[in-house]
């Protein structure tokens, strides 16, 4: 049985003190232990940005990929070895800016992976430019007169593109964060968890205090049914996205399950493979 120690590494993250990403790091490690996953059975694939560095801080099979492309890499890992527990992680710029295309398609494709976005509404690694989730009017280094554009709504994006598990968490509430990541990992299909993970250096608007004051907990809301997609769209509007908890959950066939019979079986991982006569005939029958 694995312990937290197995997942930890002797490397000091390069995040600023107080960064929300520390909580996400701790939550991933805790969830893995709670779910009894061995480190070698987990793959953590991340994008580029402050948050993308997370894959280097967990002792699992990890890859720090390209800006915006982590989701594609993560889907490839999972499809090639369905036994692995695959988490993909990145930031709001990575996932909703340069990588938005893959986010939408991962939702509809429904490969069984968990996508965690550390949403701080700013580009932190490049020192403070506006991001796709920066509120309109927010002053940043690249919007000194206030952000002229409307932010994207990742939750409604996920709903619209068919994600089968959607939740939102806050770095200031580790307990709920761990619970949501665990639920996401247990969910069969594509799970998306948007985490408000404040940037203490470059975002002075959307701070810990701001979130503590404004967030409501959907998990405690009476009468809310996460299986109801219409209700989910409405609650995002009603709360202006200021909530935590499971927004939507509805299991459907994963990509591996909907592929033609035979796809994604054990033969996929078979290290050695002899080309026998039967296989040879299958290969050449159409060409003779």
């Amino acid at each position: 049985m694995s312990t937290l120690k197995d997942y930890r590494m002797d490397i000091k993250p390069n995040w600023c003190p107080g960064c929300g990403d520390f909580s996400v790091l701790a939550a991933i490690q805790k969830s893995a232990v709670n779910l009894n996953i061995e480190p070698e059975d987990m793959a953590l694939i991340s994008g580029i940005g402050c948050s993308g560095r997370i894959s280097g801080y967990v002792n699992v099979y990890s890859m720090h990929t390209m800006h915006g492309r982590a989701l594609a890499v993560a889907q490839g890992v999972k499809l090639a070895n369905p036994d692995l527990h695959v988490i993909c992680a990145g930031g709001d710029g990575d996932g909703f800016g340069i990588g938005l295309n893959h986010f939408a398609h991962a939702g509809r494709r429904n490969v069984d992976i968990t996508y965690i976005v550390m949403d701080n509404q700013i580009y932190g690694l490049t020192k403070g430019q506006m991001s796709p989730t920066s509120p309109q009017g927010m002053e940043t280094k690249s919007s000194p007169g206030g952000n002229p554009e409307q932010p994207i709504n990742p939750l409604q994006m996920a709903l619209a593109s068919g994600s089968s598990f959607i939740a939102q968490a806050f770095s200031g509430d580790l307990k709920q964060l761990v619970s949501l990541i665990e639920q996401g990992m247990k969910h069969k299909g594509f799970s998306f968890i948007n985490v408000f993970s404040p940037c203490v250096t470059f975002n002075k608007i959307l701070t810990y205090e701001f979130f503590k004051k404004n967030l409501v907990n959907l998990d405690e809301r009476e009468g809310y049914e996460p299986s109801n997609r219409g209700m989910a769209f409405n609650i995002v509007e009603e709360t202006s996205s200021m909530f935590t908890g499971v927004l939507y959950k509805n299991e459907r066939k994963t990509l591996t399950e909907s592929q033609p019979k035979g796809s994604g079986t054990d033969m996929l991982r078979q290290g050695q493979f002899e080309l026998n006569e039967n296989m040879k005939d299958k290969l050449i029958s159409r060409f003779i």
Partner: protein
Amino acid sequence: MEELTIVIGGEQGEGIESVGEILTKVLSQMGFSLYGFRNFSSRIKGGHSDFNLRISSGKEIYVNAEKVNILVAFDRASIDLYINQMDKNSIILYDSKSVKSDNLPIAPKGVIMIEAPFQELASELGSPIMKNMVALGMICALNNHSASSFHKVIQEQFLKKGMKISQLNVEAFEKGYAFIKEKNLFSIPLVPAINSNKMFLSGNEAMVIGALASGCRFMAGYPITPASEILENMINMMPEFGGVVVQAEDELSSVAMSIGASFAGTRSMTATSGPGISLMQEAIGLSGAIEIPLVIIDTQRGGPSSGLATKMEQSDLTAMLGGTHGEIPRIIISPSTVQEAIYDMNTAFNLAEKYQCPVFIAADLVLSTSKQSAEILDPLRIEMERGKRVSDEELAEQGKALYDRFAFTDDHISPRTIPGQKFGTHHATGIEHGQTGHPTEDYENRKKMMIKRMKKIETVTLGEDIKAEGEGEDLLLIGFGSTYGAIREACEAFNKDGIKAGLAHIRLLHPFPADQLEGMINKARQVIVIENNYTGQLADVIKQHIPDHSKIQKLSKFDGRPFAPSDIRKFCKELV
């Protein structure tokens, strides 16, 4: 005759494909060597297309002939396009219904033009659509093939449409056959073939069976001409082999998924053409930096930008050689025939895993889409070399929490662990990293890591890195990819004329086999580098590697058409 060429032309949807399929299947079984190319003419309105089939009794052929012996014309465009290519003593059969006989061009001397009742005879059997089988019957009669050998294949071809239709098609074939026999026309018989049963397939199909035979179990791709056929064939065939194929949302995703699958331990690939290669550049850099095997097929077509999507070019060489920012190790293999394409895939997967870097298959439109005869797949020629992998036992012995995935070694290749292996966990990042894979900006480490990555590929070889034929004392012809067929026949023609010509076809484009080529260049009086691009990309590579390159001349063709042997003969005649 020892060889002849048949062209069947008409509008798309007139059943040209079925004629080609049946004809080539029977001829393949008889042991003939074949080369077929489907032309889609954009110059002609109405969707004209034709299938140009060259048949040889003994000699292997890798290019279409420049003369046509039998032309079957379902439309007027076929006649206009081919009348000047008709051989002496050749025959044009045109449909009496769909081609008006007034206003036809005058047939050159020796060329017989016959009004053939393709549609009429088919209509007598109840359906004009079977005119293609009537035409097939006429072709067979002209070639003196026995009709019975075609019956079975025709029946098989149409069986899915029911017994009755299948039988009617055989009758249509018989009607065509009888028409020619009754006319008592001259025949163009072929000398019986000397070879045994062969496969007949396109380069794209060859790469698919090569990949599957070599254990490729994951592919992600995005539709693009002329590589889509690879994706489609993979989707059809992969489930039987237990693997997964994904049509991704774009090429950025296809290549990234392939990298992910490879990281997970599966042999994986992607296939694309020029625009896709442009989009994949960043990921190619990642594969080089994190030392993950990756096989990429580039079926080159006319560029730049959208260029000429359905036309021939070999202009991505520079992109494959130098694409992505920064410097990475890479291997580029160039198949020149369909036969080579099968086994080159095997080599590509082996080298990708052995050297842990991206491997390109530099195919081109003509190689990908032409159909050629190839020896039947030989399982004994398929080898599995999975490179340096660490066993679970070795890892247990080390018993360390973090594996040194990027350890410095004598041959610069580090043993690899894959997810699922206990004590094999490690980090892989495109940031410069130390031996465990974690980021570091240490200057000494940076230097050692760069040297490790760049030097490891120096030992790469295909065995035959350059395909050399002929003496080449007077004239050495250098090329890569599908131009092999045209260059080879130009060489043969020179040798007949007493010119000592030879060819050096580059099979390993990177790392470049400079020493071997330099020796060949030194021995030749004249050296021509022949390629389908404007700047002479291969010639420039050669000049980079070979100090004395004063002899080298470029023959470039970039109008979208492949080289014909006569293009090369004409260019060289003025020199020799």
